[in-house]
């Protein structure tokens, strides 16, 4: 089955990668990749790297880079929910580590912005090794959405 939408989807993915990764130095330093996207949803991937290991005895990635992956993906899911360009900022992010990450494997984060109000966006996310029914981490975050007319603090 040929899908004429596929080249377009790849092009959009490339542009999103430019926006979420290319334009954000720390996401670029972690080499984050866009896995998938749709309205209100974003999935990013953190490739495994030896220099991101938190415990050299186990070879497991440090929680810090998983926090960065989840924060970046959740923020991106909020942007995927906006109808106009807006600046956003993380208010809080809670991460539950439900099972240990495995060494040598990339981590994928799927985030869903399930509610957005005038000023606040609510996001749920999971991080996994490719099988989203057995996540490594489960997260929820809230973001403030700045309105055009406002300057400075929310």
């Amino acid at each position: 089955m040929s899908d004429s939408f596929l080249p377009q989807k790849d092009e959009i993915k490339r542009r999103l990668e430019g926006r979420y990764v290319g334009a954000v130095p720390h996401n670029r330093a972690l080499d984050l990749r866009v896995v998938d996207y749709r309205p209100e949803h974003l999935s990013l991937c953190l490739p495994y790297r030896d220099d991101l290991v938190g415990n050299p005895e186990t070879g497991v990635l440090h929680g810090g880079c998983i926090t960065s992956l989840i924060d970046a993906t959740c923020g991106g899911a909020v942007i995927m929910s906006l109808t106009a360009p807006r600046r956003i900022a993380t208010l809080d992010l809670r991460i539950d580590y439900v099972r240990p990450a495995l060494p040598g494997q990339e981590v994928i984060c799927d985030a869903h912005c399930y509610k957005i109000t005038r000023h606040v966006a609510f996001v749920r996310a999971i991080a996994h090794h490719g099988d989203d029914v057995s996540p490594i981490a489960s997260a929820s975050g809230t973001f403030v959405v700045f309105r055009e007319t406002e300057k400075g603090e929310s």
Partner: protein
Amino acid sequence: MTKMRDAVVELRATGDFTALQEAIPYTRFMGITAKIVDGDVLGTMRYSEHLVGNALAQKLHGGTLGALLESTAIFKLLWHGETNAVPKTINITVEYLRGADSEDTLARAEFTRHGRRVANVRVFAWQRDPERPVAVATAHFLLVPD
């Protein structure tokens, strides 16, 4: 394999974090270090361009602040702890209070409750003024094998 345990033993004996932070690849990558100041663990994340999240406003990435908070809590647990095992993060909640500028960030941790199996740790991160934290976190750590 034993590099980490040796580093923890050295830390307990000398109060010097050098071997420990050298043993952890991620803290080296992030420029996160720790030392004992006034009898307490002071975590530091040295500013580097690759920590930036908003290039236009030159603000640090939220994830990097989470990393400093979590690392500082773990450093303090390792310094105080009774076993040489690395504490496992059960969960962490990071609250972002203000944008963090392109400069060094410091952090201190407090044990809210240090049990035998689980520790509840509150961590604060700031830049110029400890009275104006940029982010705080509450985290639970498992101190025994699961």
